[in-house]
């Protein structure tokens, strides 16, 4: 309440012709600001305020509870050392390599598969109305549901392998979910299954938005279908790529729940992502400083990727 009044008095003092305007006009002018003020304050405190708080905690010696005495960068030194401990892999090393594998494969496969499905669906086929929701439907499920379903499906003693053994194909062997070297790829499989339909819908919308005159012109000029897509349509879909990339990248980085539901951390913690690492250290191991430091490193990594990309894309648009 106090915040909204503060904001509204501020707007009234900056508006020059307040006294001459009717209250109604004043309200009309100030209303958007009043309405936005609470959410603005909440964002400032709970997003940016807590980012700063996390950065502060990462330089303390906080264990189970926050401790506000600054003790230097010991947490970062430990993470830095763990970054290079590859044999046997430290939990942090596992987490960041998994993030690389998962992030790249998840985004690339989702984009490729989504585009491919969208192009196929765009061929004016019959039954599109049925096919589209079928592909889109997995997106309606939470990561937890996806994780549990795929956990059972991939479990060698319950799912695919067991079923094929019962059908007589006894040499079939697929135990990735139990294998420390491959478990992260099962996370990719489940993640791609869930998100590629959504990416398809984005691309489909993009394809439908392309002016058919351009395509007709290209066809008259003698472009083959392949050329048409490679030279004209896909470049025109560039804004869709940007949106899809941003949606997928943030889903990849925050996919903590999928790892937990699908693998409960994997054999020997081999499926951990940095978010799992952060949660484990902060809340389960009472190493809040190390957890905070890993969160800060995640934030910096994400910023290093997203900010330049956004910057270049948006600047080009402004030109």
């Amino acid at each position: 309440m106090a915040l909204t009044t503060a904001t509204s008095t501020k707007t009234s003092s900056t508006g020059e012709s307040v006294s001459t305007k009717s209250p109604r006009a004043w309200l009309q002018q100030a209303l958007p600001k009043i309405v936005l003020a609470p959410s603005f304050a909440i964002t400032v405190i709970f997003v940016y305020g807590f980012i700063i708080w996390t950065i502060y905690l990462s330089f303390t010696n906080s264990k189970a509870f926050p401790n506000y005495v600054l003790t230097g960068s010991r947490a970062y030194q430990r993470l830095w050392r763990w970054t290079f401990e590859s044999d046997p892999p430290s939990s942090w090393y596992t987490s960041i390599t998994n993030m690389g594998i998962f992030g790249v494969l998840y985004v690339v496969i989702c984009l490729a598969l989504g585009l491919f499905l969208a192009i196929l669906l765009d061929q004016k086929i019959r039954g599109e109305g049925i096919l589209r929701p079928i592909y889109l439907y997995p997106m309606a499920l939470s990561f937890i549901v996806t994780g549990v379903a795929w956990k059972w499906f991939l479990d060698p003693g319950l799912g695919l392998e067991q079923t094929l053994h019962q059908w007589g194909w006894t040499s079939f062997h697929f135990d990735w979910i139990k294998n420390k070297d491959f478990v992260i790829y099962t996370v990719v499989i489940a993640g791609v299954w869930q998100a590629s339909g959504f990416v398809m819908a984005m691309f489909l919308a993009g394809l439908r938005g392309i002016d058919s005159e351009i395509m007709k012109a290209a066809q008259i000029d003698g472009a083959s279908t392949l050329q048409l897509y490679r030279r004209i349509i896909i470049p025109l879909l560039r804004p869709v790529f940007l949106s899809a990339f941003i949606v997928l990248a943030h889903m990849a980085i925050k996919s903590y729940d999928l790892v937990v539901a699908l693998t409960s951390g994997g054999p020997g913690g081999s499926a951990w992502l940095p978010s799992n690492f952060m949660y484990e250290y902060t809340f389960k191991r009472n190493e809040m400083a190390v957890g905070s430091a890993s969160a800060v490193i995640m934030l910096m990594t994400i910023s290093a990727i997203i900010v330049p990309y956004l910057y270049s894309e948006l600047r080009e648009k402004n030109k």
Partner: protein
Amino acid sequence: MRKLFMATAFLAASALTAHADDVKEVQMLHWWTSGGEAAALNVLKQDLAKEGYAWKDVPVAGGGGDAAMTALKAMVAAGNYPTASQMLGYTVLDYAAAGKMGDLTETAIAEGWDKAVPAALQKFAVYDGKWVAAPVNVHSVNWLWINKAVMDKIGGTEPKTFDEFIALLDKAKAAGVTPLALGGQNWQEATMFDSVVLSTGGPEFYKKAFNELDEESLKSDTMKKSFDNLAKLKEYVDPNFSGRDWNLATAMVIKGDALVQVMGDWAKGEFKAANKVPGTDFLCYRFPGTDGSVIYNSDMFGMFDVPADQKAAQIALAKATLSKSFQSAFNVVKGSVPARTDVPDTDFDACGKKGIADLKAANDGGTLFGSLAQGYGAPPAVANAYKDVVSKFVHGQITTSEEAVNQLVQAIDDAK
């Protein structure tokens, strides 16, 4: 407007006067929600109801202890203490060190807890000379749970040494049964490794390595040999063990798909829920080579520093928790043994009687040790570092026992 103001003032005043009397309610945070556990806790609810205290569960989503601890942390950070919370080991001491716990010393002395509760447990229930928690039970970890029908079929007898245990597992393997039911989650692997270390190195070694975190012991050849023994046990696990929940592993033994599980005595609750009788359907032995020692963990009710008007309820809860009748009734259902050594064992089954006798003997003989895997050997950071190393060894990220020992020393050093 004025009316509204008056009404608000009246409400506030009535709320204040209501608080002037003692609160006749116990707020309890716990994660005992499964059938047997909930039934066991009902005994306590009824005891308190007789004294006029209502019981209120603090709801926790998720069910597991981890979720409950996260919820507790948030509640305490917000200054909204429950009357008591189920807590484990070092968590109690962490909260006590942060000054969040109440003081039950008067009640404890009046009720004679300091004599009845084993000294090893008091280490976690007493902080800085003050009683801050009421222990509910003692679980012990170094048990074998064996399917008797399978045991008879393969003609096995109780293994007394680690080598005999391996021979028994070989027999089961030859008979085409999965010898060892293990759930490949880090705490289960580490819980089993607790027993392996006690068996391989003996009580003194366990104490030095896993309670005192003595670096020489952690680096020693005995520890390497313990890892080698763990590697041997791994040979008897079915290929699909990774990630399995502990109760599913117990179910394998109950159904006769597997011969034996190494697990704490909470596994007995699963056998009982399946209407199995100790001695005729299943057997409980101490882990080979650990007879006479007990590796324990214990559920405690941590008592928070609640406002004065809630103190009476808190004391009533603590008294009821450590009363002999509740200790017996609760632990018969839960599968654990009473947290005080002067409770009669008449209502307990064969395994329970052995557990009570073992606890008393271990307490008298100084061979009652905290389980490192269960968070009673060292603070959570160390315990989790330990679980990491054991799990990585079981799943092959760490390939040799030398490497495992080095990693263990390094990890514990990091976590200290």
